[in-house]
């Protein structure tokens, strides 16, 4: 039964529109305002049109940050998606094990992002960290997550996978639970192997949920700030300075509002484009899931 047609439904949405507009549109106007001026002191600014945009777009450090961001998000998807599905498949279907594993897996998702950074600093430091000590003393490999880009990235990826893979696992598990029992019966009767059951029943049926997980994970990793900031502060050097960290450095660091404004707008436009893809896919998937 499709929806009722009634434009008076607008009144129901007004509180949300007012509140989100206050938190989104007004600030965005200030950002646009900044991005077209050269502000060199409180009260003194000069209208410079799109100069700030061309400046930020040619900024090599932005290109590096952008490249690092895509590399990071790419790695995140490459590791977390298959691992998440694997975990979902390993989870029990009934019994007390279900609740226990759901709660255990969800735990990292509830920890404040800065605490995650703190946990991993403590865990990885060579002197006081279990992992740090284990690698340095037991394995004899000199390891310090703040020394080289490689070590920083390894630690960052470990932390990221440890923190967010559960999200993919939970979504995949929800997808698996939605598959009616008759499909598994039919597969058994047809003599399908575990692999065939996965390949031809579970995977296609999880297509919707996995697409949502993929897009959620990509969007959230694309905006990441707190965890790398706490763990490596963007260092060593700029090795782990992602888009958000670079933007915050620009905005708060050298009080360079013009470029920060331009960069903010470009960053937000990229996010909106990605969101548009997400929304179109969701509409398709939504219908698929509802059948």
């Amino acid at each position, binding site marked *: 039964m499709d929806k009722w047609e009634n434009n*008076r439904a607008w009144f129901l949405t007004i509180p949300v529109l007012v509140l989100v507009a206050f938190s989104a549109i007004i600030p965005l106007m200030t950002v646009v305002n900044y991005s077209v001026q050269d502000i060199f002191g409180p009260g003194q600014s000069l209208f410079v049109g799109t100069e700030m945009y061309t400046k930020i777009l040619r900024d090599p450090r932005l290109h590096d940050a952008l490249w690092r961001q895509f590399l990071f998000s790419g790695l995140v998807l490459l590791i977390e998606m298959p691992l998440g599905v694997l975990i979902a498949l390993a989870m029990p279907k009934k019994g007390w094990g279900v609740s226990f594993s759901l709660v255990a897996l969800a735990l990292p998702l509830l920890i404040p992002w800065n605490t995650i950074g703190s946990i991993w600093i403590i865990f990885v430091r060579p002197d006081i960290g279990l992992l740090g000590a284990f690698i340095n003393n037991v394995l004899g490999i000199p390891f310090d997550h703040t020394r080289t880009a490689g070590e920083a990235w390894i630690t960052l990826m470990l932390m990221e996978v440890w923190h967010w893979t559960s999200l993919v696992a939970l979504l995949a598990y929800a997808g698996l639970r939605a598959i009616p029992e008759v499909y598994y019966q039919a597969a058994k009767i047809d003599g399908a192997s575990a692999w065939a059951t996965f390949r031809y029943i579970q995977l296609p049926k999880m297509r919707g949920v996995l697409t949502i997980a993929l897009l959620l994970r990509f969007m959230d990793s694309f905006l990441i700030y707190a965890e790398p900031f706490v763990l490596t502060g963007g260092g060593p050097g700029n090795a782990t300075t992602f888009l958000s960290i670079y933007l915050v450095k620009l905005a708060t660091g050298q009080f360079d509002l013009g470029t920060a404004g331009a960069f903010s707008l470009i960053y937000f436009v990229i996010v909106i484009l990605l969101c548009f893809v997400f929304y179109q896919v969701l509409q398709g998937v939504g219908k698929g899931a509802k059948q």
Partner: protein
Amino acid sequence: MKGKSKTIGLFIYIFLIFLPIYWMINMSLRTNADILGTLTLYPVDPTFANYIKIFTDSSWYSGYINSMIYVTMNVLISLTVALPAAYAFSRYRFMGDKQVFFWLLTNRMAPGAVFLLPFFQLYSTIGLLDTHIAVALAHCLFNVPLAVWILEGFMSGIPREIDETAFIDGYSLPRFFVTIFIPLIRSGVGVTAFFCFMFSWVELLFARTLTITNAKPIQSVMTRTISATGMDWGLLAAAGVLTIVPGALVIWFVRNHMAKGFALGRV
């Protein structure tokens, strides 16, 4: 993967999840000197000094209280405004409904860094800087869209014929909404409250930037200690453990709807 190896694999993974958290708890029960001294797998002589310090030192426990205040305010605001809007999106087709629903999504995904400075300017000009309501309102940027999407997902699970039957029986929209509809989606409201609570509780950027002293949240209290020289690891670990407590307490009640919550109600 046969049954046996599946459960073993799962247990190993869950063990790896608990390990770093255990290590922090281990640290939180030891004095800084003890930590820097010998490295032991479990706290040899555990002490609650760090916790006591946090609960007695006002600069620490006030951080928790402030966080609790603005998070609760945010959850209440988000839910009250999101419920009617979600009902509109779930039940009605109206001009521009798809575009607004999409616009809300872009705000849920908005990078905090982009809004950092504008919020700072906005709240200082209207004189709300360093107040709980400022952080609560700032968090509405992503929590209200999240609430609308999740609630819309739950509401679409209820057949529209139930609404129609109520209207036919003489219920007005508000009365139907409160007496019949909300009880039907109470699990949805619970899950939405949990996720708004969580995303507001974990947020660092706005909470740190929009507060100076009397609304200063625990997160920024913790980050400040990191940059100070002579890091007190035990204290930091204890503070970290206490930030996990709220989420861990509530998770049991929403465990079956976690996926639906994270997937913005789309699963």
